């Protein structure tokens, strides 16, 4: 039993934090309010090798473990959840299936540029009629000679408007339901693929999310990722990993809420003393700190299981459930501690409050997490 981070992990945390103070925090408000994609920082993140941390150097990654990536996401999300999300989606949703299921050629062609930040990736799974349940999806991939022809519309695809490549899940055999789904690599610019307008959102506003429309989009057969029929399994394991990343995002958001609340409650004077001297405020702070602590342990533990090659389906779901609900509840408390000013644009807690919510929804809702956890426990 050892709760100490390795030197490398500590170093990455310190470096990402310093990077955030210098580059991310100063533009985080503008990124949220305009909103705009923080392209200048993505370039710098790529220079630091932080877009594909857990993948081998030969594919452009940093060759570190997943926990190191999780720490980086936690730190980025403390400063700017949108930036954290852009990186998390690239690393865990786009790179991961390529790394895990891609052929050597596919890894060289797509994984390497994604890790190096030459382009960003997106994962197109959800549809209007297929969210928590992916089985009823109507996007199809029909074999036609040496090609597949893709048709359908994907919804809520993060990074879509700026993505250089998409991992698309589509039915190759509709009759088989989930077992008839397959995963494909579709480069942006392929005739027949287009993206919709970025959706105006509550939070994560600097991360661009849109529809992906596939209209007679033809891709070569070699762009099948894994085997036909493996789409659901690929999506499942990819989402499991990404859930740890979303937990890390929630953790970072909750940590930031705690930092802001401690600072503000010491500064703010009412009834002739700082409000932090009142027990009502102290209790909120104590609960916040405790739940952040517990969320961090569950998140790191899930990442450790991932790194050890142990099962992490349940652990990832527990981490995400706990961390995301903590983020939502504790950003609410943070706004409460701030009072009226906490609801004003430009106050960090106002942004944190909005950014927290999606962590309970994306890559599987809290309800889906509970089902996954209960299924594992009742098995």
């Amino acid at each position: 039993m050892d709760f100490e981070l390795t030197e490398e992990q500590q170093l990455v945390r310190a470096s990402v934090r310093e990077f955030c103070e210098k580059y991310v925090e100063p533009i985080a408000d503008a990124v949220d309010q305009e909103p705009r994609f923080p392209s200048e920082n993505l370039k710098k993140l790529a220079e630091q090798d932080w877009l594909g941390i857990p993948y081998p150097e030969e594919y452009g990654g940093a060759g570190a473990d997943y926990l190191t990536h999780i720490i980086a996401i936690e730190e980025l999300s403390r400063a700017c959840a949108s930036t954290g999300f852009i990186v998390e989606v690239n690393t865990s949703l786009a790179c991961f299936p390529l790394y895990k299921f891609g052929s050597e050629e596919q890894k060289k062609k797509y994984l390497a540029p994604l890790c190096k930040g030459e382009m960003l990736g997106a994962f197109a799974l959800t549809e209007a009629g297929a969210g928590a349940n992916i089985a009823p999806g109507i996007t199809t991939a029909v074999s036609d000679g040496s090609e597949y022809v893709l048709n359908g519309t994907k919804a809520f695809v993060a990074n879509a408007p700026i993505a250089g490549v998409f991992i698309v899940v589509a039915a190759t055999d509709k009759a088989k339901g989930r077992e008839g789904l397959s995963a494909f690599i579709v480069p942006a610019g392929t005739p027949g693929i287009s993206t919709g307008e970025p959706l105006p959102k509550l939070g994560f506003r600097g991360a661009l999310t849109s529809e992906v429309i596939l209209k007679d989009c033809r891709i070569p057969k070699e762009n099948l990722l894994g085997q036909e029929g493996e789409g659901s399994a690929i999506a499942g394991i990819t989402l499991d990993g990404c859930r740890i990343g979303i937990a890390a995002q929630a953790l970072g958001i909750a940590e930031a809420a705690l930092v802001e609340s401690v600072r503000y409650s010491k500064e703010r004077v009412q009834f002739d003393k700082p409000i932090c001297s009142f027990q009502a405020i102290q209790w909120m702070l104590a609960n916040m700190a405790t739940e952040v602590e517990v969320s961090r342990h569950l998140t790191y533990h899930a990442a450790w299981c991932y790194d050890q090659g142990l099962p992490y389906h349940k652990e990832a779901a527990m981490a995400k459930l706990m961390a995301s609900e903590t983020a939502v509840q504790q950003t609410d408390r943070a706004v409460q501690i701030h009072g009226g000013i906490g609801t004003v644009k430009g106050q960090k807690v106002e942004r944190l409050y909005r950014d927290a919510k999606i962590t309970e929804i994306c890559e599987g809702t809290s309800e889906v997490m509970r089902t996954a956890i209960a299924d594992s426990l009742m098995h």
Partner: protein
Amino acid sequence: MDFELTQTQRVIQETAAQFVKQELAPVAAELDRTKDREKLKGLLKQLAKLGFMGINVDRKYGGTGAGSVAFSLAMTELGRGCASTTVTTSVTNMVAEVIQVVGTDQLRDKYIPPLCSGEFAAGGFALTEAAAGSDPAAMRMSAVLDGDHWVLNGNKIFISSAEFAGVFVVWAVTDKEARKGKGISCFLVEPSFPGFRVGKEEKKLGQLASPTNEVIFDNCRVPKENLLGVLNDGFRIAAAELAGGRVGIGSMALGIGLAAMDFARDVVKERMSVAATGVNRQGIQGLIADNYTRLAGARLALLRAAFLKDQKQYYATEASMAKVYATEAANRACHDAMTILGDYGYTYGCPVERFYRDVRVTSIYEGTSEIQRLIIARELLR
């Protein structure tokens, strides 16, 4: 970061689990009902023989020398079986540890081995008074030097195992003029010392097999050398040692919570395979998922605090976080287990009924949840 247990930690965890299965769980309901002292003392003796009375105590004093992480794991496993036995074990460990940390060689040699070996049925921790609960520095019990003896006067309340403990750590005011908390000292008191008397036994909600009594000191004469630690440094000792105790209580609470949820889950598993469809399972699935998630988080928080203690790092805040979180998660787990089981869970004979009563005090003793929050907040606002 490595969540793998060491060989020693695993052996201790497994030994505790085995003991629960074979010895503790089968008699826990009966102990709760009959409060059979002899049976309890028999179990304590067996635990001592297995090395559970000085898990984090040096081998040279008869301890196991396995560290705080092992202590936490053991308390969790034992807590699954019988909270009364477990709390007695936890307090005895705490008493042995405080003597090891601040005692003179003479005191260590004299009192730790009998605590660890089971020669003493248990250790006692006498801090609380009627007017000094969450605020122990407000205590009134006094100790005045008279020749070779300290003379103690006052009453302590809510003292676990007072009826049969072989030695008590007792706090008393030695300097009335000092600033609050700066004039308190700590003593080791044997029940045979003149002027020591065990008072009335409390009737309680839970942990019924573990007796809780008032202890009366009426010109109780304590040899001078039984001063534990530095004169007037007693309050600091209490604060420091309670942090370790909190890991023990939190870990025990986790065990109670896990036992309650495991019981409910197993019943649900059995019933659901025959009855409900996927959709109307969801309410219960949610309760199960939420509780096991909180308990998993509690376990990690407890182990982290214990790990920091083993590393000789600061851990008081982490211990407070772990205690408040684990004991409240465990309370919730017992509550929800009863919800899942319905009337069955509410009746004698169902262990969840006992768990529900036993778990409540874990968020009260060794510092209430509210005190833990104040400790955490104080550290945050430093």
